[in-house]
């Protein structure tokens, strides 16, 4: 069960791949699709593995992704 | 607003021009100076270094003039009135930051005690070879203000004026002294603080969020906010819009640079400051500034003793140039004689403003000492014919 989630602003992404590479739980993958600037942004491929650690947010040079933990005792189900 | 009495040495003093300039800066509210030693300007900051601790001020000797000329601007944005002091070679190094002050509209004062150049030139001897550099030395289009004292008393008075003009128009203002004026010792009367007008900084009344750092007021001058007060503004030397956003394009450049120039051009007549003396029917007028005006004084006296009708005009503000005063003068005299301690700089401005209405005779001098009055007299005699 996911402890957190990531939020992606795909149009800000320049496709560097830092978030995908350094996500410690391998939540992300680069999309095959393009954003409007022609880059491949990430998408969440393994949502349940996300710990919400925000390492993706720290790596992202374009401020296009961040992670957040769910509140303790809360639920990820929406 | 008046000067802070705690820093004004009211009274009659015997000071050299450099020392008087320092007292003028203190009277104008300057409590921050950044400098780098260079003859013949150093006595200004030597005195400031001595006086500053008593009044809570800071003098920092920077590693070079590049540093000094922008350290003072950092201090301004934190709320200080600040200045730097230099001479020829240092002035050359400061040119980029003169432009930065123009572009960022940083009120500050640059004092240049002119010596002979180019390069190291004549470190200890006078010249007036930097007057065009003061006007055009930084790259790009801009307008600038420069005042030019001819006595220690005026070094005090015009330094106060320089600070006031810099605050009024948000431009760097130059005090163009020369080695003779800087090192000449004379009586200097420092008035009581309440008689010294100090122009307050144009601080914004707007709240953070409403404030744009480069939004001009009616006279095209924007109001300023200091760092640390929550405005979170961006100040940049890149062409920018009113919000400080970079605008690297022709339209933004046109809008900004025209305003920067126009705010000074529009005030040119107010800024022009000169002394005109002599008969209305003068045949010849001598136009001079700085130390040369004192030699010209002697030449004019000698000419008048020979029965010649000679007027004299002394520029206290060199930039903006006193176009209309020279134009009017040229309309009524046959000849304008222009002695200066360079090989012909401000004489070009005189020729431009005279626009052919009068003959213009330069009396050039490469610097190192002052003119012989006889050389100026010869030009006057030539001008009468």
């Amino acid at each position, binding site marked *: 069960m996911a402890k957190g989630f990531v*939020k992606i602003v795909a149009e800000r992404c320049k496709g*560097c791949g830092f978030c995908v590479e350094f996500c410690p739980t391998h939540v992300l993958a680069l999309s095959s699709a393009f954003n409007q600037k022609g880059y491949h942004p990430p998408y969440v491929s393994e949502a349940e593995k996300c710990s919400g650690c925000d390492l993706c947010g720290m790596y992202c040079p374009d401020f296009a992704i961040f992670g957040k933990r769910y509140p303790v005792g809360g639920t990820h189900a929406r | 607003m008046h000067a802070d009495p705690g820093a004004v040495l009211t009274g009659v003093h015997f000071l050299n021009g450099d020392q008087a300039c320092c007292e003028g800066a203190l009277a104008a509210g300057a409590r*921050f100076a950044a400098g780098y030693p260079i003859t013949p300007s150093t006595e200004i900051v030597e005195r400031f270094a001595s006086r500053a601790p008593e009044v809570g001020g800071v003098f920092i000797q920077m590693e070079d003039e590049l540093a000094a000329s922008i350290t003072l601007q950092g*201090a301004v*944005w934190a*709320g*200080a009135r*600040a200045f730097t002091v230099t001479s020829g070679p240092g002035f050359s190094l400061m040119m980029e930051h003169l432009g930065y002050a123009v572009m960022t509209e940083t009120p500050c004062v640059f004092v240049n005690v002119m010596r002979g150049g180019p390069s190291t030139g004549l470190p200890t001897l006078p010249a007036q070879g930097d007057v065009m550099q003061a006007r055009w030395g930084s790259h790009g289009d801009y307008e600038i203000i420069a005042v030019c004292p001819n006595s220690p008393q005026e070094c005090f008075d015009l330094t106060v004026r320089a600070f006031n003009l810099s605050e009024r128009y948000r431009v760097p203002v130059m005090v163009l002294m020369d080695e003779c004026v800087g090192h000449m010792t004379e009586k200097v009367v420092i008035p009581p603080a309440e008689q010294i007008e100090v122009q307050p900084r144009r601080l914004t009344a707007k709240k953070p969020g409403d404030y744009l750092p480069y939004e001009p007021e009616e006279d095209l001058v924007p109001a300023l906010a200091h760092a640390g007060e929550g405005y979170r503004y961006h100040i940049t*030397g890149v062409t920018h819009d009113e919000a400080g956003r970079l605008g690297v394009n022709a339209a933004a450049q046109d809008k900004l640079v025209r305003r920067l120039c126009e705010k000074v051009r529009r005030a040119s007549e107010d800024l022009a400051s000169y002394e005109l003396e002599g008969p209305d029917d003068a045949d010849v007028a001598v136009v001079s500034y700085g130390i040369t005006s004192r030699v010209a004084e002697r030449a004019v006296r000698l000419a008048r003793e020979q029965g010649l009708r000679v007027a004299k005009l002394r520029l206290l503000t060199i930039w903006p140039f006193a176009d209309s005063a020279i134009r009017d003068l040229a309309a009524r005299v046959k000849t304008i004689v222009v002695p200066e301690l360079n090989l012909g700089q401000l004489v070009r401005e005189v020729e431009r403003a005279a626009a052919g209405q009068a003959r213009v005779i330069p009396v050039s001098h490469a610097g190192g000492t002052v003119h012989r009055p006889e050389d100026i007299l010869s030009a006057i005699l030539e001008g009468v014919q």
Partner: protein
Amino acid sequence: MSNAVMEPGTLVQEPEAHNPVEPFLRMERIPHIWCPGCGIGTTVNCFARALMNAGLNTDKVAVVSGIGCSGRVAGYVNLDSFHTTHGRAIPFATGLKLANPELTVVVYSGDGDLASIGGNHLIHAARRNLDIKVICVNNLVYAMTGGQTAATTPVSSTTATSPYGTFEPTLNLPQLLEAAGATYIARWTTYHVKQLEKAMTEALKHKGFSFVEVLSPCPTLFQRRNHLGDGLATMKFYKEHSQTKHGASTADTGLTKEGDIVVGKFVVKEREEYIEGMTRHFTEHLGRPFEFKVRTC
């Protein structure tokens, strides 16, 4: 987000959640100008978090930049910011700090700006131990102007102005800064985001001249010309070739083109800070407390 990237498994939860870095940025100016794979934005993430960690009133924090890619940081941070001239961020910051010592003054710029054209100021600010925090993003090259050789370019690198490779010796910044008298010196890379965040936090809290060097990829102008891959490849290189050595002798922190990178906190020492020294000195001289009254406007 465009539908094109909504691949299976994409979850966008808590739509009201915001990137914690956003309050520290001028979001209307984003996207920024930095290239894909450039690490400058990564350093800004660390800086934003360091500001939070340090618990500073950000109204009292000013960022001063010089010219260059890293010099553009000033334009993006939602703080009082000054984009100054090439090489002169430190002297501008010196004036700002001296006129209002309450400000936390951060100089954020690049290696060319701080260490080459501004090298003299770097040395003397460190000598004075003035309480400013210098973040030097080192991408080993002059990037904004097209990738010319810098004082920091490793020997044998190809650059726009060294088509046959560089032969000049390379400046070792931590060693320079230690010799000059900096009292906090750390180096990390953009791979080391947590360590960098910590180093920036420590620098913000340190009383005295602090220097944090961050190695950052310039895939467009350095890595490409040197066939070192893209930004991600550089990040992997940092991961594989960095050796953390806290307290390392700065004589051993020189950089080579493809050699190991010594990272860590190299210098932390106590020495009288400039403004403290000035205050003590003039208090002794005056025989009464010296009070700053520089802000007369």
